[in-house]
C-alpha cells in the first residue's frame, strides 16, 4: 500500500491543505488560496536570494488541457498573497470550473516535487492516486468534470526559482494516474475514525455513536457544510447559506485599515496572526508602534460563532434522519479559531433550552485532508485488488 505516491488536497476557500505520501513518507503543506498575475516589469529582485523561500516566490506557468489560458504566468499561494493584484476566492465560486483550482493544485504538486528532489531542475513526478474535495453542493454534479480535468499529464514551469542558476527555471512534468473526489465534511469523519497509515479504525467510540447519528459542521472560508452520519455512512447533507470566516476577516481588515492605518496584504496574513494566538493580535503600522487589534477581532469572532450555532440548530432540525443525533462535531480551521467564542455562545443556547454541545476534536482543521488521504489509499487498494482478480480470472 505504501509503494505508491498519494496526494491529498483539501481545496479550501482560504487555504489549500496538502498531504503528500511518497513511498510511505508523509509531508504536510498549506498554501493560501490566492493567485495573482505575474508581471515581469514589476518583479522585484530579492536583495538577498539566499533568504528567499521558493514558497514565497512561487511563480508558475502551466501547460495542461485543464487550463484555458496557457500563456499566463501566475504568482501562487504565499507569493500571490503579497501582491497588490491578488485574487482571492469569491463567494459561491465553482471550484471545478475555475482555472485557479488547477493553477494552485498543480503549483502545490510542483512545489512538493521540487522539495523532495532538491537537486533537479527538470523532473518528473507521478501521482498514483490523487484525492481532492468539493463542497457538498458541488460534489454530485461536478466531481466527474474535476476528475477528467485532473487525470493525465501536465507541465508546470516554476520561474525565478531561488538558488537555481539562470534562466532560473524548474520544470516539473506531472502525471496524475487516478483521481478520487470526496465531499468536504464527510471526509472529516473518515479522518476522525480511521488511522491514516494503517487505514484501520482508531476511534471505536465514535463509530458506536454514529449508530444513533452524528452531525459534523465544517466551518470554512466561504461555506459551512453540515453532514449527517449514521451507521458510519453519510446520510444527509445540509448546505447553510454562503457563510464562512472570510466575510469576518474582510470586516476586521477594513476596520483595522480605517482605524489603525495598517493594511493587511491578504486574508491569509490576518488568519496566520489569528492562529498564532492572542499574544500576536497586534499590528505595527509604524516601526515601534504596536496597536492591539483584539478589539476588532473578538466581536467579529463572536458574531461568527453565534451564526455558526444558528446554522447548526437549523441543520439538526431540518433532516429527519439525524434529528436524534448523539454527537455534534465542529471541524474546519475557522471553528478552531473561534472555539472559545463558539463555546461561550453555546452556553447561551443552553440557557435558551436548545443546548448544542459541540465536540472540538484534535487537529480539527486537518481532518478533511486526512480523510482524503485515507480515500486515496483505499482507492489504490481497490484498484490493486481488481487487477489481481483480473489476473486470476485470466489464469482460470
Amino acid at each position, binding site marked *: *500500500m505504501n509503494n505508491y505516491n498519494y496526494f491529498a488536497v483539501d481545496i479550501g476557500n482560504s487555504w489549500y491543505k496538502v498531504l503528500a505520501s511518497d513511498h510511505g*513518507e508523509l509531508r504536510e503543506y498549506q498554501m493560501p488560496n490566492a493567485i495573482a498575475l505575474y508581471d515581469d516589469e514589476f518583479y522585484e529582485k530579492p536583495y538577498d536570494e539566499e533568504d528567499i523561500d521558493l514558497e514565497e516566490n512561487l511563480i508558475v506557468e502551466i501547460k495542461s488541457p485543464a487550463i484555458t489560458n496557457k500563456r499566463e504566468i501566475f504568482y501562487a499561494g504565499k507569493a500571490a498573497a503579497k501582491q497588490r493584484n491578488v485574487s482571492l476566492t469569491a463567494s459561491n465560486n465553482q471550484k471545478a470550473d475555475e482555472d485557479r483550482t488547477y493553477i494552485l493544485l498543480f503549483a502545490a504538486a510542483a512545489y512538493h516535487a521540487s522539495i523532495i528532489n532538491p537537486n533537479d531542475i527538470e523532473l518528473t513526478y507521478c501521482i498514483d492516486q490523487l484525492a481532492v474535495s468539493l463542497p457538498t453542493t458541488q460534489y454530485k454534479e461536478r466531481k466527474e468534470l474535476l476528475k477528467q480535468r485532473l487525470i493525465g499529464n501536465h507541465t508546470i514551469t516554476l520561474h525565478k526559482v531561488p538558488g537555481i542558476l539562470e534562466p532560473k527555471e524548474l520544470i516539473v512534468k506531472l502525471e496524475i494516474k487516478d483521481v478520487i473526489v470526496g465531499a468536504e465534511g464527510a471526509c472529516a*469523519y473518515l479522518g476522525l475514525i480511521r488511522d491514516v497509515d*494503517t*487505514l*484501520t479504525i482508531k476511534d471505536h*467510540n465514535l463509530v458506536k455513536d454514529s449508530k444513533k447519528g452524528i452531525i459534523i459542521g465544517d466551518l470554512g472560508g466561504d461555506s459551512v457544510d453540515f453532514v449527517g452520519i449514521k451507521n458510519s455512512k453519510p446520510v444527509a447533507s445540509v448546505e447553510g447559506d454562503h457563510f464562512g470566516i472570510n466575510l469576518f476577516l474582510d470586516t476586521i481588515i477594513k476596520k483595522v485599515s480605517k482605524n489603525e492605518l495598517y493594511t493587511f496584504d491578504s486574508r491569509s496574513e490576518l488568519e496566520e496572526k489569528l492562529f498564532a494566538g492572542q499574544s500576536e493580535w497586534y499590528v505595527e503600522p509604524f516601526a515601534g508602534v504596536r496597536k492591539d487589534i483584539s478589539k476588532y477581532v473578538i466581536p467579529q469572532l463572536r458574531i461568527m460563532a453565534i451564526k455558526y450555532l444558528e446554522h447548526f440548530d437549523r441543520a439538526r432540525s431540518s433532516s429527519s434522519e439525524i434529528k436524534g443525533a448523539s454527537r455534534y462535531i465542529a471541524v474546519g480551521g475557522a471553528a478552531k479559531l473561534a472555539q472559545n467564542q463558539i463555546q461561550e455562545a453555546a452556553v447561551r443556547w443552553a440557557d435558551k433550552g436548545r443546548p448544542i454541545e459541540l465536540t472540538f476534536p484534535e487537529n480539527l482543521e486537518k481532518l478533511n485532508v486526512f480523510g482524503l488521504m485515507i*480515500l486515496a489509499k*483505499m482507492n489504490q487498494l481497490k484498484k490493486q485488488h481488481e487487477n489481481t482478480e483480473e489476473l486470476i480470472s485470466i489464469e482460470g
Partner: protein
Amino acid sequence: MSNTYTDYVNKIAITVPERYIDVKTGESYSVSPKIVDQIEYHADNSSLSHLVLSALHHYLNPKPVLSGGSAEILQQLADIRAMLENGTFHIQPLVKEKTIKEQTDAAKLLNMKEVEDILEAFGG
C-alpha cells in the same frame, strides 16, 4: 474527550481533559481513573472544593528534602528538560517508514467489501 463535573451546592465546576500539563514541570500526563473517580465522588458529595484545595495544599507546600543533594539535582534536570522541550518546539514533518510486514497487515486487516463500501459512500 473532556468531562465536566459540577458541585452545584458550592458552585464549583471542573472540566477534566484527557491529558493535563503538570504546571511545575511542563510535562503532560493522562488523567488516571483514580483521580476521575475521586472527582466524581466529591462532586456528588458536594465536597469538590475540599478535594481540590487539599490536592493544591499537598502540591504547593514544599516537601522536606529526602536525600539531600540528589533530589535537587533531579529536580533541576527535570526543569532543564522542560525548558529544552518548550524552548525549541518546532513542527517536524511527519516521516514514517513502514516495514513491508506492516503494509501487508494493513491490507489483510481491511476487508475488500468494507473498502468498496467506504469508497462508494464517501468518494466517487
